[in-house]
C-alpha cells in the first residue's frame, strides 16, 4: 500500500536541439505521488508570455517556437505541478544561446583504408533534428581508442563530416564516437553510438602453399607440416579486409615441406 503524497519540487530541463527553430522543456517528479498530477508551464521572455505546445507523447514535454533570435533577454520557464494534496513549482532562467545542444551525429561509419595499416576512415552525418546546417553549421569532436587501452584520443573538427585517423595501432580493434556542437554557441551533444573498426592488415601467405607445390613435384600422398608455434594474439575482427591476423613467435623459421609416407 503506497501513501498518496503532495508533489515534491519537479525537475525541469529546457534544451534547443533544433536551433534556430525553437526549444523544448521536459520535466519529471523526483518521487512518485501515487495520485494523478497536473502540470502547468509558463514561458516568459521579457514582457511576453509565450505558448508552450504540449507533446502528445511523451506527456511531460512541450515545445516553444522562437519569436526572436539573438536576444540578450533571458527566458523564464515556470513549471507548477498540482495534485489533490498540494502543489509545487520550479523555475528555470536561461539565455537563448546557453540551452543549444544538438543531438548526436548520426550514421557514424568507420572503415579501414586499403594498404594503410595505421588508418581508419570515419564519416558521419549531421543530426536530422538540426534544421539548417548550412546557415548554422556544426563542429565535431571525434574520440577514438583501441579496445585494449582506456585512454581516448581526441580530434576537434571545424568543418566536414569525415576524418581519417592516421595513428591507429596496426591490427588493433578501435572504438570510435563523435559529438556535435553549434559552431558558435551552446554545448556539445552527447556522444554518438559507438562504432568499431580495425585498420587494414596485409593477408599472410598461406602455410600450405609451398607444401602443395612440393607434394605435386614429389608425388607424395600425404604431407607433414610441423605445427607452427603461434602466439594467441588480440582478436582481429577485421572489418572488410577478409584477412585473419596470425602471430608468429620471433625466430621461427617457417619452412614448409612435405614428408613422404609410403
Amino acid at each position, binding site marked *: 500500500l503506497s501513501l498518496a503524497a503532495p508533489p515534491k519540487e519537479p525537475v525541469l530541463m529546457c534544451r534547443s536541439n533544433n536551433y534556430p527553430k525553437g526549444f523544448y522543456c521536459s520535466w519529471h517528479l523526483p518521487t512518485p505521488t501515487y495520485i494523478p498530477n497536473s502540470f502547468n508551464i509558463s514561458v516568459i521572455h521579457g514582457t511576453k508570455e509565450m505558448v508552450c505546445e504540449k507533446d502528445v507523447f511523451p506527456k511531460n514535454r512541450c515545445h516553444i517556437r522562437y519569436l526572436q533570435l539573438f536576444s540578450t533577454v533571458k527566458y523564464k520557464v515556470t513549471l507548477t505541478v498540482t495534485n489533490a494534496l498540494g502543489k509545487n513549482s520550479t523555475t528555470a532562467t536561461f539565455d537563448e544561446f546557453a540551452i543549444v545542444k544538438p543531438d548526436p551525429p548520426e550514421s557514424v561509419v568507420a572503415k579501414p583504408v586499403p594498404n594503410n595499416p595505421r588508418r581508419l576512415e570515419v564519416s558521419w552525418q549531421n543530426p536530422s533534428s538540426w534544421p539548417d546546417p548550412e546557415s*548554422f553549421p556544426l563542429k565535431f569532436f571525434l574520440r577514438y581508442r583501441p579496445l585494449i587501452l582506456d585512454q581516448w584520443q581526441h580530434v576537434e573538427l571545424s568543418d566536414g563530416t569525415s576524418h581519417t585517423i592516421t595513428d591507429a595501432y596496426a591490427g588493433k580493434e578501435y572504438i570510435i564516437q563523435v559529438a556535435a556542437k553549434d559552431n558558435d554557441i551552446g554545448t556539445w551533444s552527447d556522444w554518438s553510438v559507438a562504432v568499431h573498426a580495425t585498420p587494414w592488415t596485409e593477408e599472410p601467405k598461406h602455410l600450405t602453399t609451398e607444401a602443395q607445390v612440393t607434394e605435386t613435384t614429389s608425388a607424395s600422398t600425404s604431407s607433414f607440416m610441423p605445427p607452427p608455434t603461434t602466439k594467441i594474439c588480440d582478436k582481429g575482427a577485421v572489418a572488410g579486409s577478409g584477412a585473419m591476423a596470425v602471430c608468429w613467435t620471433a625466430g621461427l623459421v617457417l619452412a614448409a615441406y612435405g614428408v613422404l609416407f609410403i
Partner: protein
Amino acid sequence: MAAADSPSAALQRRDLCSRGIRLAGKMRSDVIDLLDTYVERQGLDASASVAAAVEGVPVAAAERWDEQTGTQRLLENLAAYRAFRALLAQMLEEQREQLGEADAALGRALAAVLLQVSAFSYHLEELLRLESHGPPSEERAACPPPPQLSLFERKLRGLGVLRELAQWAVRSARDLRQLAKPGPGSSSAPSPPESP
C-alpha cells in the same frame, strides 16, 4: 564594378563573407574576454541585469530574421557597428577619466575591440559596395550626447554595450553565412520560412 550577380561578384562576395565570418568570430571571442575583464575591474556582478533596451545601444534581437534580404542584413549590421564604434570610444574615454593609467589592461582591451569593430564596419561597407548599393554616409552627429549617468549607471551601461556587441558578433556571422549562400542576388527576398 562587376554586376552584383556576375560570377566574379559572387566569388568576391563569398570571399568577403568568409573573411567577415572569421572577423566576427575573433571579435566575439575578444568581446567575451573583455566582458570578463570589464565585470571584474568595474566591480560588477556578471549576472547583473541590464535594462532590455539601453538607450542608444543597437539591439541584436531580430524577429523574422530568416526573412531578411541580404541588403537588409548588411545595412542593419553596418548601422549597429557604427553605433558600437561610437559607444566604445565613449567607454574608452570614460574609463581613462575614471581610472587613468591605473587600469591600462582594460583600456588596451577596449581599444583592441574598438579597432576590430572599426575593421568590421569597413568590411561591411566593402560588401555593400559589391552589392552595388554603396554604404550609407555616416552621420557624424548621429551619436547623441552621453546621458547624464552616475558612475554605477555608466558601468552598467558599459556592461549592456558589451553584451549586446557579443550577440551582434554571433548574429553577424549568421548573417554573412546567409549572404554567402549561392542563389539569386542577395537583394532579392528569400523564400518564406519553413513551418516547424
